[in-house]
């Protein structure tokens, strides 16, 4: 079944590579433009569950890698659809039309990596409070500098009493 699916995908989408790095694992590397159609195709093939969306920051290559994890309900095959997007002005299309549960995943990635999902109606902060800095999961975000700037600057209340 897996080899058949591989042949099907590579026949329809020319600029797509399909690999099997290990048992029950399929990696589909594709271009940003064909994300929506390939996800729709896979959904029709039976991969009806979107498990997660994860993101990797490849800072030296100047790219973000978005990984959509799909799984069918009746077989152990795990499909990862990988796309690369530019680090500058990072944005991509939302997949809300195909998988409705992507709403929260996209919101999280927007908050932690700063990738904008065009068409997602709610990209409000999920975990962070009062955040005015770079998105914290980017590789060029200096967490120690942020800690010094934010938490260490706040004075201790009890010490103030001892001094005065």
């Amino acid at each position, binding site marked *: 079944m897996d080899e058949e699916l591989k042949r099907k995908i590579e026949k329809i989408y020319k600029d797509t590579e399909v690999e099997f790095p290990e048992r029950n694992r399929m990696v589909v590397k594709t271009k940003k433009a064909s994300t929506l159609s390939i996800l729709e195709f896979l959904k029709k093939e039976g991969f009806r569950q979107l498990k997660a969306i994860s993101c990797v920051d490849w800072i030296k290559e100047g790219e973000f890698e978005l990984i959509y994890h799909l799984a069918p309900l009746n077989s152990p095959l795990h499909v990862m659809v990988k796309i690369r997007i530019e680090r500058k002005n990072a944005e991509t299309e939302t997949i809300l039309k195909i998988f409705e549960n992507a709403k929260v995943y996209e919101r999280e990635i927007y908050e932690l990596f700063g990738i904008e999902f065009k068409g997602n109606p709610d990209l409000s902060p999920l*975990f*962070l*409070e*009062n955040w005015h800095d770079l998105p*914290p999961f980017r590789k060029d*975000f200096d*967490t*120690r500098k*942020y*800690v010094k700037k*934010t*938490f*260490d*600057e*706040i*004075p*201790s*209340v*009890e010490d*103030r*009493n001892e001094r005065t």
Partner: protein
Amino acid sequence: MDRKNILKWLKEPGKMGHKYSLWAVYFCTGCGIIEIPPTITSQWDAERFGVIPVATPRQANLFMITGYVSVKTLKAIIRTYEQMPEPKYTVAFGSCPINGGMYWDSYNTIKHIDKYIPIDGWIAGCMPRPEAIFIGVTKLWMMIDKGAATGYIRYRKNYKFYRRNQEKLFGKLPWPPLYPVDEKENKNG
């Protein structure tokens, strides 16, 4: 019961009441809460020491902050702490609330919890065993006896500074101040 203590108790019956009825608010932050179920159930039986968990902060007077505190959780902690009736005692539990612990350079974890709410006692360790909780409770008894567990009094006295620290982190807080923050009123009260 020790007969020698009866006179002492008659002098200050309130202290005895506070001492032996430490009701802990069942508020879980971080991984430290994993030590609480064995502590309150029959294995270690915290009720020997008068410590029982209660559901709402309105009935509690002991607040154990168990484990790392994220920025969002701190907001809930402040709200819970302000709802508890006085006298109230707070114990920071584990090394993360003390100085950040292993999250010392994390962007979303509070490093020193005592900058935002007053802390009466600290239990160090990662994780502290249930025995450490009981040692902490007995130390808290001694502090209550001597009148040294004054966290809630310090909070009332320095509320302006605690509130200022909280606002530095969160921006404007969505709830009104618990005590008057105006300087003139602060001196009178």
